[in-house]
C-alpha cells in the first residue's frame, strides 16, 4: 500500500531573487512534469502548500514563490544545499498538444506568470509548432515584474507586451490594467485564436470577459485556477467547486468548463 502523504526530501540547488518578495527556487528533480502542474511543497513542522511548477528541465524544477505566510517565510530562509520536501506532481497542467498549430496568446497577471512560464518558453523555443505567438503580461509595479531578463529575450522572439498597473518613475513601458491592452494584440481572425489566461481571480474574470467581448470563442480560452489544497489527490475537499476537484481535473480548465465553476 502506497502512502501518498509522505513527502520526500529534495536538494535546493539555487535561489534567484525575482522581486523583493518573489524568489525562484531551483530543486534537483528527475521525473516527468507538465507545465502548469503543482507540487505539495513542505517543511516538516512548518506546513505544506500547493506551489505551481514554473519551469523544469531533465534534472531540476523551478518554483517561483511569493513570501506571504508562515511556510513561505521559512522557505525564504533556506540556502542552496538545504533540503525541501515535496510530493507530486499533481494536476493536469497545460497539454502542449492542445496549442500546437494555433494562433496562441498567453496572458498572465502577477504570479500567474509562474504556471505558464514553461508553456511560453516551450513555444518560444519551438515557434514552428504554433501558427503565431503573442504574450501580454501585467504586474502591479515595475518592482513586481517576474523573470524580467527572460521577458526581454521573449520580446526579441515574439510580440510581447508588458504593462504595470500604475505609472512609475523610471518606467517607459505600458501602464494601466492588463485588460486595457488587449487591443494591442493581433485580433485578426479572432475566432481562430487561442488564449491562455492566468492570474489573480479578479484579473482572470475581467480578462476572459474582455476576450469574449473582442470575439474570442469560449472554447479557445484556457485558464488556470488557484485554490487552497491540503492533499492534491481529491480527498481533503478544499478545492472542490461543484462536482469538480481543481487538484484532479484542473488546475487548467477550458473556459467552457471554467465559466460554470461557481465557488
Amino acid at each position, binding site marked *: 500500500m*502506497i502512502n501518498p*502523504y509522505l513527502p520526500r526530501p529534495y536538494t535546493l540547488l539555487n535561489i534567484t531573487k525575482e522581486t523583493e518578495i518573489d524568489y525562484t527556487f531551483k530543486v534537483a528533480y528527475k521525473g516527468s512534469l507538465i507545465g502548469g502542474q503543482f507540487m505539495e511543497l513542505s517543511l*516538516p513542522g*512548518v506546513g505544506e502548500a500547493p506551489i505551481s511548477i514554473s519551469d523544469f528541465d531533465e534534472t531540476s524544477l523551478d518554483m517561483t514563490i511569493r513570501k506571504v505566510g508562515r*511556510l513561505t517565510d521559512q522557505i525564504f530562509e533556506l540556502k542552496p544545499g538545504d533540503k525541501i520536501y515535496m510530493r507530486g506532481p499533481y494536476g493536469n497542467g497545460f497539454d502542449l498538444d492542445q496549442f500546437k498549430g494555433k494562433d496562441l496568446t498567453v496572458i498572465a497577471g502577477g504570479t500567474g506568470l509562474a504556471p505558464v512560464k514553461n508553456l511560453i518558453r516551450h513555444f518560444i523555443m519551438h515557434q514552428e509548432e504554433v501558427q503565431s505567438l503573442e504574450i501580454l503580461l501585467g504586474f502591479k509595479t515595475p518592482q513586481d515584474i517576474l523573470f524580467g531578463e527572460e521577458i526581454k529575450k521573449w520580446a526579441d522572439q515574439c510580440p510581447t507586451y508588458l504593462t504595470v498597473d500604475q505609472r512609475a518613475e523610471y518606467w517607459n513601458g505600458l501602464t494601466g490594467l492588463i485588460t486595457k491592452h488587449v487591443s494591442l494584440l493581433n485580433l485578426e481572425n479572432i475566432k481562430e485564436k487561442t488564449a491562455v489566461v492566468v492570474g489573480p*481571480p479578479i484579473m482572470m474574470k475581467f480578462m476572459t470577459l474582455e476576450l469574449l467581448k473582442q470575439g474570442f470563442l469560449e472554447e479557445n480560452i484556457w485558464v488556470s485556477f488557484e485554490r487552497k489544497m491540503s492533499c492534491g489527490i481529491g*480527498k*481533503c*475537499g*478544499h478545492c472542490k467547486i461543484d462536482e469538480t476537484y481543481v487538484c484532479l481535473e484542473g488546475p487548467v480548465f477550458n473556459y467552457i468548463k471554467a465559466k460554470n465553476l461557481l465557488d
Partner: protein
Amino acid sequence: MGYRLTTTRFDKYLTNLSETFDIYAPVVQKGKGMYSDTEVVGYGKITCFDEIVFDKKSYYSPKEVFYPIRETLFYFLNDELKEAPLDIRPIILFVRPCDINGIMRLDTMFLENGGIKDYYYLRRRQLLKFIMIECTEGFDTCFCVSMGTNKTDQYDGVIRVQDEKILFDTDDEKLLTSALEENPKEVFTPRFIEENKVKVTIPEPDLVTKDVFEHEIWTEYTQRCIACGRCNTSCITCSCFTMQDVKSSDNDHLGERRRVWAGCHVDGFTDMAGGHSFRSKNGEKMRFKTMHKINDYYKRFGTHMCVGCGRCDDVCPEYISFSKCINKLNDIISEGGSND
C-alpha cells in the same frame, strides 16, 4: 439463522469478542453535553450490553471512531520522516443503516475519488466490522427513507432488541464464536424503517442551474448561520480535512504533521496565503454544503452524499433545518428557479 440471547449471555459474548476487538457503540457521555452537567450520546468503547444506547440517536456520528478528529500522519526528526504507527485494534461498530450508508460515502471519497487510496483511512477502515442496529422507528429529524439510505446489506452482524430479548445474527467467521453458538437459535430477518416523519424531495440534479446559486434563499442563511461548523462535525459524510504541522516546543527539529477535520461552514476553509478566499457569506457556505450533499456528489458518483441522518438539524444552535432547506430548494426549482 440467528440467535436469541439474554443480556447476561450477550455480555458474555461481548467479553468474548473483546479478546479480538474494541467494541464501539452509542453510549451516554456524562458531562459532555452542550450545557454544564448535561450528557450527550456519542460513540464510545463498551464492554457490556447495558452501556449501549438504543433509544436515542447519537449526537455525533460514528466517523470519529475510524477517522480521528486529529490524526498524526508522520513524525520527523531532522531529515528523517517516520510514518505514524497504527494505534488501534480491530473494531466492531454498532451502527444504524443510515450510518453504514454514510460510511460507504466516506469510502467513495477516501478510496475512490482521484484514483488514489487514502492510506491512513484505509488502514483503519480495513479493521472495521459493522453490527447493524435494527432501526424501524427512527427519530424526529430523520429522513433516511427519502434518501434511500434506510436499508443496507453491508453489515457483518445485526442486532434486534425487543424488550428483554436480544436477537443477533451474523455469518462472519470472526463474529461466530462459541459464546454465540451456545445460545438458542431463532431465525429473524432484519427489518428497516419504511416511513419517516420528515420527508424530502431532492431537486433533479440537472435542474439546479446558476440561477439557483444566486437565489435569495441563501441570504436567509447568511442571516441565520453563525458558521460554527457543527453540521460538518456531526455529519457522517463530511470528510474534509486540513494539514497541520507542529514542532516540539523545546526541539525545533522534532515534530509531526497531522490532519485535522475541516468544515466548509467554518471561516477560513478556502483561505489561501496571500489573502484570497471564497464564499465569505455564510449563506454561500450553506449553499456550497447543500449542493455537495444533494447535487454535485451525485453528479460525480451517482449517489447522493446526504444519508438523511438529521444530525445537522439536531446540533444546529440556530435551528437551521437541512431537510427544510432541501424542500424549499425543491419548491423554488419546481417553480422555475429564479428570484422573480
